[in-house]
């Protein structure tokens, strides 16, 4: 509220008292102490420039990341996904971020690399992979989930987990494509090497929060699964 008028109209002949004086002054003082609003500023004026704004006047970016090579067989700073069912998280830069929020709509994002290879050349196609999502304060954000794993729609069977038959010699070229069937694939994010990006918009409460990359190894099946190069960030859109 910005429109202010004298609370007391002091006129000739009135008894002088301190209260009308104090109240008339306080109407102005209170307004200038944190209550100035759009009524106090000319609408067409250019009031502020960027360098007059505080750093966090509009946004606050929290970042956590880890430089990692994807080359084998080094595996330096790779995070290993255990062969177990259920959601897994990790500690360390780029995989877990503790931050204090001022309380705002916040863009949460994780961008990272999944590896499903041990560095040893095998003839198995990758499959029965993993689900990935963001986990905030211990709760998986299902809006951010990538992957499936529904055995009713995904095809998991395969001969020796292979993508194609051992020998193509007996298959005519006309039928080759069909006959190269039954690889072992489907189910979550599958593949030897797969870049992943998951994000969500969340209204955060003020205070400390923990953001993590969460990975679920479907049925604990896949081995040699890793999270390598990774980055987490949270952009608070304060106002």
């Amino acid at each position, binding site marked *: 509220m910005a429109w202010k008028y004298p609370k007391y109209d002091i006129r000739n002949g009135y008894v002088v008292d301190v209260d009308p004086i104090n109240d008339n002054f306080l109407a102005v*003082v209170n307004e200038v102490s944190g209550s100035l609003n759009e009524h106090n500023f000319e609408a067409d004026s250019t009031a502020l420039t960027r360098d007059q704004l505080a750093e966090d006047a509009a946004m606050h970016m929290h970042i956590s990341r880890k430089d990692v090579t994807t080359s084998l067989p080094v595996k330096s700073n790779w995070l290993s996904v255990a062969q177990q069912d259920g959601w897994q998280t990790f500690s360390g830069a780029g995989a877990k971020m503790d931050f204090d929020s001022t309380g705002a709509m916040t863009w949460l994002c994780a961008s990272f690399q999944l590896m499903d290879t041990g560095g040893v050349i095998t003839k198995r196609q*990758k499959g029965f992979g993993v689900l990935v999502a963001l986990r905030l304060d211990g709760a998986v954000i299902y809006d951010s989930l990538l992957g499936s794993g529904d055995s009713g729609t995904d095809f998991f069977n395969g001969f020796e987990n292979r993508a194609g038959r051992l020998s193509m010699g007996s298959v005519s070229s006309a039928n080759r494509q069909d006959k190269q069937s039954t690889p072992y694939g489907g189910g979550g994010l599958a593949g030897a*090497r797969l*870049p992943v990006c998951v994000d969500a918009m969340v209204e955060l409460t003020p205070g400390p929060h923990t953001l993590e990359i969460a990975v679920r190894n479907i049925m604990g099946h896949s081995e040699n699964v890793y999270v390598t190069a990774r980055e987490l*960030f949270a952009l608070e859109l304060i106002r």
Partner: protein
Amino acid sequence: MATYKYLETGTNFNASELNLRFDQVIGTNKGLNAIKLEDCALGAFRHNMLPRVIHSSDLTVMPPSRDFATERNVGFGVTTSSLDIITHEFPSPLSLDMDSDDNVSSVVVLANVLINNFKTKLEIVESGEVIDKLKPNEDVNYIEIFLEIETTETPTPIALARTNRALSPRVTIDSSSNFCIGFDGVDLDTFQDVSIRTVITADDFAAWGGKLTHVRLKLRKPTALDKAVVSQSVTHSKSNITAIPLHAKVTSED
């Protein structure tokens, strides 16, 4: 913030006492003549009175979209070697320093490219067994994709190691549950969208300094790729890169 000394009962009501209170409210550099940020209520300023908080302060009008994003909306391209997929050049070099004229602390980058196809020939000997060369093997067939930046001072582009990504062909599954590995077994349609998100700060080029000029999405043939085993070509098509400079406080939580 204005202060006010209460006029107490019994105080002499004279000019001095009145002037003291006028001075506190409308005196030189006091009260109404010294409005501070905390004196304004939340939302006190209309949108036209506030500066933009994206891109450089030097831009006084809403920048065109090309200042934020570059698109490569073209047909298929085939490469057998490393290449620049797409480059975004800032309209003017950016200083990632909130104390500079740009008033920018960081740049959020969203990069995407569609990898359509891997074409490869494999012939692998594993434990004495010759694996059919028509069988795709992801362990040895992949490409690397990453982001790099340039500044006015860097002699060569700086690769951002945290954006190192690798992509293997995977398999293609058709509606009849047949897994097709492509024509003649060496032509792998994959249709995978590679997405990379990152935040660029001044720390990324602290060793060189300067102003940020370019962000580039690159494809790299892996150095570990065994040329005797894999003869690779990759088809790529649509790509885009969005780079949004922000007036924001940045906190590294590592």
